[in-house]
Every structure is written in structure tokens, then in C-alpha cells.
């Protein structure tokens, strides 16, 4: 068994913490885990493509995912979902996008406007089995006082939707060790996401 998750977003959004969270949950379930974080310059508002791979030790060894081979792509920033298509293909990849634009300074500097959400979805479609869009950063700010909780909400959503083959309990346990300072809110954020995911799953409303 092998499952390839890609997280993408912008430096400072908490993508790396989310990677550690999911990796720990996979470890709790006894999977062999690989992955890579790419920081450095990217910490300063650049793109952070991040991978988590889990499954059997025999099948998983490269730290990065092969082109066109991600099972699941979580985009914490909407625009970056488009650049992640490099790792996606129609038969295999599900996109879950946080509708939260962090407009790069180049939008105004070079006059290349930030695309609308429907434009983003249109560009991704040829590479996606399914596309789900949520506004988790807004929800995070609204419910827990900071957009950063949107990440944990999103992880809850994909778990609820059944898109991340890990148990909710493993993720709860991973959250506790990964974010001890903000544990309470993170657990609440996860439960909220889980609920939203389950509801959407039962309603079978797939965009």
C-alpha cells in the first residue's frame, strides 16, 4: 500500500506543522512514512510544496512524490492549487482547496490579476478526479480567532470526506503532540472539519 499526499501553500501558513501532524498520525497507524519539507527562501512568503507519503516500506522510499502521482492534494492557498497540477492526474488525484487568496505582490506589480475561484477550478479540472472547495481560513478566523486554524479544519474535512485513509483518532492523537500550546482549539477545529466533511460526504455534493 502506498498513499501520496501533497500539501501546498505559502510560507508562514503553517503548512509544515500540518505535515508533521499527518505524518505522526500515519506513524501511529504503523505505516512507514517518508516525505519532504522544502524551506529556506520559501519561508518568506514563497510557495511551499510539501509531501507526506505512507504505506509499506517496500513501496515508499523517494522523499518526493512522482510527477502526476499524488492521491490527494491539499491546497492551503487557492492559487497554489494550480501550480500543484504538476503532481496530479485525472484518474488519480483529488484536490481539496482552501478558498483563501494570498495575493502575491506581483499581481499588482506586473498587473497579472489573481484568478477567480472558478478560473482556478477550470484550470485544475483536467488534472483532477474530484475538486472540493472550502473556506477554512475564514472559518478558522471566525471560530477560533486566527486563519491558521483553517489548516486543522481542512485536515478534519478530508478525514470526514474519507479522502485521507487515516483514522480520526490517530489524527486527534497527533494533534495533541504536534500543537500542544493551541491543543484545545486545534482539536475543536479538527472536529468541526470532520463534521463538515462527513456532512458533505453524506450529501454527496461533489463539485
Amino acid at each position: 500500500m502506498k498513499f501520496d499526499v501533497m500539501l501546498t501553500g505559502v510560507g508562514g501558513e503553517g503548512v509544515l506543522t500540518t505535515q508533521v501532524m499527518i505524518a505522526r498520525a500515519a506513524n501511529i497507524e504503523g505505516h512507514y512514512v517518508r516525505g519532504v519539507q522544502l524551506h529556506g527562501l520559501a519561508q518568506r512568503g514563497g510557495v511551499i510544496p510539501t509531501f507526506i507519503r505512507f504505506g509499506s516500506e517496500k513501496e515508499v522510499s523517494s522523499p518526493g512524490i512522482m510527477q502526476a502521482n499524488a492521491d490527494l492534494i491539499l491546497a492551503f492557498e487557492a492559487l497554489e492549487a494550480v501550480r500543484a497540477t504538476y503532481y496530479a492526474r485525472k484518474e488519480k488525484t483529488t484536490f481539496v482547496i482552501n478558498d483563501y487568496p494570498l495575493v502575491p505582490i506581483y499581481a499588482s506589480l506586473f498587473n497579472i490579476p489573481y484568478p477567480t475561484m472558478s478560473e482556478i477550478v477550470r484550470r485544475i479540472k483536467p488534472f483532477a478526479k474530484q475538486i472540493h472547495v472550502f473556506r477554512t481560513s475564514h472559518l478558522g478566523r471566525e471560530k477560533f480567532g486566527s486563519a491558521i486554524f483553517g489548516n486543522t479544519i481542512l485536515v478534519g474535512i478530508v478525514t470526514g470526506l474519507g479522502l485521507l485513509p487515516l483514522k480520526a483518532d490517530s489524527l486527534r492523537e497527533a494533534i495533541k503532540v504536534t500543537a500542544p500550546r493551541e491543543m484545545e482549539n486545534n482539536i475543536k477545529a479538527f472536529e468541526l472539519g470532520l463534521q463538515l466533511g462527513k456532512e458533505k460526504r453524506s450529501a454527496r455534493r461533489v463539485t
Partner: protein
Amino acid sequence: MDVLEEPGKKVVLLGNEAIVRGALEAGVGFVAAYPGTPSSEVPMTFSRIAKKVGLYFEYSSNEKVAFEAATGAAWSGVRAMTSQKHFGLNVAADSIPPVAYTGVRAGFVVMVADDPSAWSSAQTEQDTRYYARMFKMPMLEPSNPQECLDYTKLAFDISEEFEIPVFLRTTTKITHSIGTVRLGEMKKPKIRGRFQKDPDKYYNLKPHLQVLHERVNEKLKQIEEKYGQKLNTVFPGEGKIGIITSGVSFEYAKEALLELGLKPPIAKIVLTHPISKSFVSNFIKDKEAVLVLEELEPILENFVEQIAKEANPNLVIHGKDLLPKSDEYNLERVIPALEKIFGKKLGIDFNDHKKKVDSASKNLTPRKPVLCPGCPHRSTFYAVKKVFGDEAIYAGDIGCYILGALDPINMQDFIVSMGAGIGVSHGIGIVSDQDVVAFVGDSTFFHAAMPAILNYRFNNAGKTPLVVVLDNAITAMTGHQPHPGSGFTGMGEKVEPVKIEDVVRALGAEVKVSNAFSQKQLIQALQELKSIKGPKVLVSRGGCRLLTRRQFHAKGLAIPIFQIDQEKCTKCGICTNDFACPAIVKATVEPRGETVYSINPDICLGCAVCMQICPEGAIHIAKREGEK
């Protein structure tokens, strides 16, 4: 923390964390390092746990000093370690070979991280494996976090057994990769020792120098004999074509072969210096062809070529004929090379997919790294450009301010190495009449800039450049490590911070200090300094804003945020196009298609500089709702 988990447990660690755990299992007692990504999490992890574990850790002022300190400990019988990125090894390089000759008493591991593809560097893609050959030191190369742990531990043993410092060489996709790691027993560190005088060991003047030189040659020979077979592995397989590989390339080879359904024999080399001749020759002697998979330089490949002359002259050797010498490898690069050699297809057209991706991303708003919202460097750059204009030459350096190389700042005309902007500017100032401004960070100032400023004073000729020290009180770029001006050490002890202006005065230059967040102060200081002849330095002081925010959060305080008054805003675009704080967003608002400038409250870090540069006075402080 996972690094300190119980033995026997399986945890997920970053390669750099696994290296720390390996060192702890080897009982390391002394660690000194200067940060450099992709090695930075090694010292950062040590810094976090040193007190708890009871070992000594320091952030040294540069890599050379760190290496020397660790040498002193290893010479005195305490297991020691130093870590750095590839360029750091260039800085330490002067002190390393004599220590390889004299040898050590306790185990001494020199960890170095290369950065193929330059994920965390500018400058070059140097391959430090050459250093092992030049300096006559053994080199071990892990492939994944588990091996990071195992081989760090083993490197200490080899070092102590043969009394020689040992390199542990990694690359970004190893140190920054995560992986499942099984933990072993930690050893209580020995932290006290004694230096014993021993001319036979340390006296490296002629003719004893040649004795030491022969000794190190002999040690390498013995290491090759003892560990050449033990450390390198052959994974048996089918057919007459073999793979020879090391480091992260092994991980790619393994997975790529599985994808392609191929099972050729693989020789994995962990001890990449000295490479075992018998190991390689045994592997290649019955093969028709081999593919050597290694990133950057064809070091293994050249070695195989040399051995093949005797062991198997008809062997066809592939490597850099199919794969690049620059950039990094990955599955998409390795698979086509295997496809060619084995004549088997995976059925994915990587190029075709790439074309489709490019067309889907056409005209997409680009995103590049930028200085954080509220960064003091942006404010300093803005003021310097106001005073010196577009024509002045702006010497760059390597810190967060390297991002000043990008639009719209464009004030890093060249970047050589840490501290080099000041040195290069000296030459430009002497042969030309151009205005030159050399930027340098505070950590970089202590690391490498002081001799260059001293040289301005000593050889006070031509038009002396203005040095601008961007003093944000921390080594920000590599993850906020303290330096001599920060006021605390790697062990978290408070110390009196060294003031850069005091050092500059002692070096013999004029100095002015300005608040980095005050455009008025900056411009006044810059104008005054501009008219001064001779060595001159502006210290632009303002804390790293990202760190300030963290400190605010830790104290439960809210950082102030700013807002644009839509009534007053004339949409001139200065705040986005010239100043370019990423928190300020220009957007078109439907339904009327009106352009609106606003500040994103999630990312504004409240530096108040946009308020100063807005010609309409349209920006003012706002209250952040629900701020935690």
C-alpha cells in the same frame, strides 16, 4: 519531543533531527555550529535539548570557529560534532586538513549538507565530496533519516577507532526529508576532558609533518579495508546490468525500479571516501553495463571507470551521459535514464504532462519569496533608494535581505558569499567613481564582515563605499538563531549583547545608528553619511518582525495592525508597487470593477512604515478583532 523518545520506539524524524539523535546515541558531549540551511535544524535541535540532555552546545560566530572549538573538545577526549551547509565548509576549510593529519582523541563528526537545486541557497551547487579527498578524511553518506541516525552514530565510532575526524555528508532531500526512524539507546554524554601534550600527535612541522601525512594515508587504507565491505551493500538482482549509487539517489533508484518492475543488482556505497576498490571491482567484474546514480559531480562514476580498466575493461559505464551534473535528481529524472538502459517503458510521458501543466499555469500570477510584511529590511532598502537612487551600485549579501534582489527593490546587484559585498565594493570604489552601498546583516557582520571594514580603514583609498548593517538582532534567514549581538546563547543563557556600532568604531569607521522603522531617521542618517569621506557605516536597527510577532504571541499580546482609509486613498499605488509590503493588496471589487487598496489583517505585522510612505496620510492604525 520525538528526538528524545524512548529506545525501541518508531517515530517520524526530519533527517537533521535523526542526525542529532544519532549523535546522542553516540554520547556526544560538545557541539558547536554556525547555522546554514539545509543543515540548520541540527544546531536548532541541539539548542532545544542541550540543557535537558546535559551536553554543551554553542552557536559559534562562524563555521571556522565552530570547527576549531569542536576540535579542542575532541582533542581533550570529549566526543564532538560540528555542522554546516556546504559553503560553511569553505569557511572552516582552512582549519580542517591539519586536524585530519594530527587526528583526534575522542570521536569527532563534521556534518555537512549540500544543496543540489539550491532550495535553500544562492551562490553555487558545490559538491563537498571533493573535500573528503582533498583533506584526507573518511566520508559517510546516509540515504534517509534512519540512516542519518545509524551512520552518525557509526561515524563517531570510526572516528574514535582511527583517531580521525569523519565527514557525514548529506543533501537537502535527506536533511529536509522525513522518515520513520527506530530509536536506539542514548548514551550519557561525557562533557569533561583534559588536553594532554603530545608532540608526536600534534607537532606538524617538517619533518614530523611527513610522518603525520603518512599516518593519515595509512588510516585511510585501514578504514577502506575494515569498512569498505561492511558499510557498502550489494542488493542482489537479475541480469548483467547493475546500478551503483549512494545518498538520496539510492532512494530514487529503489522506487523507480519498483515502478518499472525491474530487479537489477544494486551496489549502494555509504563510505564514499575512501571508496573500497575491492567492493567496486567485485560488483562490476561480471557486469556488462552499470548506471552510476549520484547527484552533482561524477565522483563515483570516475572511480568506477578507473577500477574498470583492470576489473572489467569492456564494461559500459553510464551516468552523466544520461543525467545532468547540475540541479538535483528525482523520480522523473531517474526513470527515463533507467528506461533507456533497460529498454522498458513506464508508460508515463513526463514531458507531455509537463507541457499540459505549463499550459494550465499560463499567465498565472507568479509567486516568489518576499521579505515578510513589516520586515525592517524593506524599510531600510526604501530609504537607501530614496537617498542613493537607481544609479548607485548595491552590493548584496546572504541573509533575508537577499530578497532585495527581486522586484520592486532590485538592490542586490551581486551576491558572492557572506561578507563579500563589502570586500568587492572596496575594489569597485578604488577603480571607479560610482556610489557604492554594501548591505550586510548583523549575523553576517560578526561572521565575516569585520576584516573587510578594517581593510577600508587600513587601505583608505578611492571612494569608500557606505556599509549598511541591517541589524535585526538575530540570524533570521536560517531560522532565528542568536549571534553575538542577540543577548543570549545557544543554551539560552543571557549574555551582554555586543553592539555593532562599538565594533565599527574600534575598526576605525564613522558610524551612525538609526531606527529601521523610521523613514525620517534613516534618510537623515544616510544623507549625513553620504557626505563623509572615508570608512562609514550605518547601523539600521529594527527587530525581525516575524520574531517580534512570535514574542508578542507568547506574551498573549496583540500586534497592532494598520488600515487604509478609503476616503483618503487616491490609488497612487506607491504602497504596493514601490514599497510592496505583501500585506497590502490591490484588488478589483465587483460589481463596479473598482480598484481598492486594502491591508490583509491576517498578515499585517504592524511595522507602521506604510503609514510613513503614504503621501496622502491614508494609512492608520486599526484594531485587530479577536487577535490571540
